[in-house]
């Protein structure tokens, strides 16, 4: 018996894995300040990209369409909350417009993949 993990067969699942990787990469470039800080993340913002990235990766790897959709909805909700609370004391994420744009990208991307019908 082999234990080697299978590469996701569907291009939709591979794309979900790619978006998960993009989310995790966002944690690397999410340092505040600096010319190459393309996305700004607060402490809880890091949690969003780390957990969301892992969930998207697992969902794509295992072909779990419902989890792709749920993770996309999560990113979209986080983007909306971040947009409404930028600069306020009650902001749980500590981000700004760049955070909104990044999470919007991941949310819309995962939703587009999750909502696309699978064909055999």
């Amino acid at each position: 018996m082999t234990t080697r993990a299978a590469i996701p067969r569907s291009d939709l699942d591979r794309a979900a894995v790619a978006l998960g990787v993009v989310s995790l990469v966002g944690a690397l470039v999410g340092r505040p300040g600096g010319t190459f800080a393309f996305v700004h993340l607060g402490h809880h913002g890091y949690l969003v990209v780390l957990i969301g990235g892992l969930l998207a990766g697992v969902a794509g790897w295992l072909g779990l369409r419902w989890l792709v959709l749920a993770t996309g909805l999560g990113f979209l909700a986080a983007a909306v909350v971040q947009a409404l609370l930028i600069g306020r004391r009650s902001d749980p994420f500590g981000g700004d417009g760049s955070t909104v744009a990044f999470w919007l990208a991941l949310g819309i991307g995962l939703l587009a993949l999750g909502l696309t019908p699978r064909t055999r």
Partner: protein
Amino acid sequence: MPMSTQAVAGRTDPLTASRLSRVLIGVVRVGVALLWIQNAAWKAPPDFGALRGFTEDGVKHPVLAPWAWLIQHVILPNFTPFGWLTLILESSIGAFLLIGLATRLWALVGIGQTIAITLSVLYTPGEWAWSYFLMLLAHLTLFATAAGRCYGLDGVLRARWLAAPGPLPRLLARLS
């Protein structure tokens, strides 16, 4: 057996035949997306102070008289909704270009927003005019090459949109 003209063109067309070209188109798309994403950071509600300063430059250093009038009499008196519109629009351009979804549509929106920015700050002292010309050219390139088909979601979903019945998939195929 002689090759058809299309087959020969397919072999020699660098946009379709070369993986390097496809990677480079993807890099340009992501780079332009990061430009919008990073610059969404300083469009900060609730007062959008920095954005207001740049917008006022369009009145202090007018590029086009009707545009300066529009800023002075329509945009500045209603600045908070305008600030939100700018934040949402520029965040969306960055988001859609980053994942390469409906890329040709969002390249067009990027062209429109670049023109609006150019008409506001082109003659502001210290601005480098070629920044805005290059922004415009970069978006034209994204549109012309349908850049989302190179390592973007358009490339994953377009074949399905073309094969699916109904107006929405057909529209998405056109926008990609």
